[in-house]
């Protein structure tokens, strides 16, 4: 089972697991051809070398299932959703799995950080982090979530949490759900005609006559420029 599928399994839980597994374990039926026929998950104008590297990374696992479960829980603690989907449903764990393989400098701090968290969980509660109650989880997180205000015994944990916060935040806000939540309005053909009037007013700004007279007028944008009478 490759990482993409095992992640899906971890995310959807028990029932899904048995369904996926039963399919793969049926040795009498060669389903490999069927499962190979899939549209490329990522199709974004790659060169052949780039595509090959993406594919190779997607086929590898970095995190163990146990680590991945912790990442899923942490993702939802950091970005639980705010009238929007939580991080685990916005593709954040999948992104973290990929980026850790893609940027190897994340590997040791992430692996070690997850281990730090596990150790801390056992020290306090004799259980793994994912098996703690919500209150217990938050008690640990509170100790490592504020790097300027952290007790000496938690500084390494705070380092790890800051990295985790970076990855979850960037993963969330670069997902479809996150971009919608953020309210980014661009990435589509449009016509820029300056800052909206109410925004200018709110900020005490205005376009002076010189700017207005010289700037492009939207209705002229499709005209072919005529240099007749233009002097420099």
């Amino acid at each position, binding site marked *: 089972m490759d990482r993409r599928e095992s992640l899906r399994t971890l995310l959807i839980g028990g029932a899904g697991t048995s369904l996926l597994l039963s399919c793969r374990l049926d040795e009498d039926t060669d389903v490999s051809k069927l499962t190979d026929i899939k549209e490329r998950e990522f199709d974004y104008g790659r060169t052949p*070398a780039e595509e090959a590297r993406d594919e190779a990374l997607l086929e590898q696992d970095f995190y163990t299932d146990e680590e991945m479960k912790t990442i899923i829980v942490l993702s939802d*603690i950091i970005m639980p959703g705010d009238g929007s989907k939580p991080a685990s449903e916005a593709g954040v764990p999948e992104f973290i799995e990929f980026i850790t393989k893609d940027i190897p400098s994340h590997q040791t701090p992430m692996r070690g950080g997850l281990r730090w968290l596990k150790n801390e969980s056992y020290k306090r509660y004799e259980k793994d982090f994912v098996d703690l109650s919500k209150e217990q989880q938050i008690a640990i997180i509170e100790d490592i979530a504020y790097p*300027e205000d952290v007790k000496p015994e938690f500084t390494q944990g705070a380092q790890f949490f800051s990295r985790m916060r970076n990855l979850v935040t960037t993963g969330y*806000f670069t997902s479809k759900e*996150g971009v919608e939540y953020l309210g980014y309005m661009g990435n589509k*053909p449009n016509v820029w005609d300056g800052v909206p009037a109410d925004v200018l007013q709110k900020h005490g700004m205005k376009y002076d006559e010189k700017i207005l007279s010289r*700037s492009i007028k939207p209705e002229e*944008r499709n005209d072919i*420029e005529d240099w007749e009478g233009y002097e420099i």
Partner: protein
Amino acid sequence: MSFQIIEQSPKYDVCIVGSGAGGGMAAKILADKGFKIALVEAGPNFDPANPQQRTQLRWPWESPRRGAGTMRPFGDFDMAYGGWELDGEPYTRAQGTEFDWFRSRMLGGRTNHWGRISLRFGPLDFKRKDFDGKGDNWPIGYDDVKPYYDKVDKLIGVFGTRENIPNEPDGYFLPPPKPRLHELYFQKGTSKIGIPMIPSRLSILTKRVNKKRAACFYCNQCSRSCSVYGDFSSSSVLVNPAMETGKVDLYTNAMVREVITDGEGNATGVHYINKEDLKDYRIKAKVVILAASACSSARILLNSKSSVHPNGLANSSNVVGKYLHDSTGSSRMAFMPSLMDRKRYNEDGVGGMHLYTPWWLNDDKSLGFSRGYHIEYWGGMGMPAYGFGFNMENLNGMVPGIDGETKKAGGYGVELMKDVKRFYGSLVGMAGRGESIPQEENRCEIDKEKVDKFGIPVLKFHYKWTEEEVKQAAHMQDTFEEIISNMGGMALGEKPGKDSSYGLENPGRIIHEVGTTRMGSDPKKSVLNKYNQAHDVPNLFVMDGGSFVSQADKNPTWTILALAWRASDYLADEMKKGNI
């Protein structure tokens, strides 16, 4: 294993090596004049409208790394195949020196991702030595190039405004877009301290210049190369029409090893390695134009040794590879409390800043350094990509929350999500791009030991900034802080100090490297004459940035284009007269 060089059968009038700004322009002008041309490109064919190559209008989640710069240094969606490191194509640096060499291998080269900042050099920029006694003058002046700048403006299109500023010559400008909100804040800040800020001059079509290219639709993604050709890239704007003449044969994935010469030392063509079948080929031509980028062209010349040219081709002066210089760069970021909690609207605009600061202190002799810089600005509610939202702990403890309470920096949960939203669009930044003084010792030469995977000897770089550039960077940093405080911002991070040379980037990082085959009137001190023609080899030209005597604080592309057009006109005349 037999070694054989396969001869391409047609003999061409002109063989052009490289399809970027210089090579594309030469191909267009000479094809229009009816010459039969071989255009040789080391990378693959490329068209931003090809859905298999397009990155424009893609979303961050279409990339598994959300656009991070692992594969392409400026991120997954940037349209430069290549970077500062290429697989199997190393380069080396002399100990204690720094140079980072950016190469892009594709039709159109680096013009597919560049900033479209299209500034003319001014009268002073060609004659700086007359003004400050340093470096060398160009053998030509602004008046020699002006007619070609005019033609380039009209052919390609550039927006801007006529400002009548000395040494910032006006051109044939399309109307500029209105400034964005953060740019108005910048303008407010700069005007308080007497620093000018004027509409940018970018080769982006706010209006159309012909029927084949559509107007800009304001997606802010010029770095991804425009699928409607609404900005300038050599492949879309020059090579495409050149191909349509039927006069150009395009050779892609063709890595040129050397220029071939005859017994008298004249160029007879080029020898290249086809990257697909790994065989060696030869193209014969009456004239060879190198436009492979300043350092690549120097490398080809230095590797083209023969009994007539034991020192490399066109190198009796021993100047090939020397006087390598890049623009300086230093930058700073700031946080603008008044730009928090912004109303959302689409402010993508064109790909790049709508306003910029041209160098304003030409007449100030008390600065402690000689050459100037311009300032580029960024900010706004842009599309998130990998890195977005990083280091919130450095921001969200700086100002009171919506409830008026300043909270602990960092955090998690719904509060953190709301913070990311609040701070969106409140970060701005600026970067200086300055002129350095070319030094003979700053150079590239052939490494005596290493070859690349094609067996071609590689370049070794020697480059050190001088005190001039360091002092200029210090001035940039002081200026940035002054601007930030006057616009109501808070500078982020530590101010770069002496220990980091005031944030001065390594040479090569600004990707304006030029000067390696400089032009001049004295064949003992220069490689090319004032028409980009090799002093030693009349049927050999270099039409990339290699010909520059000095790189002003202006970005080099517009001048490369103008000089390539001028040199192509000269070349055509000489061929007609039978001189070549």
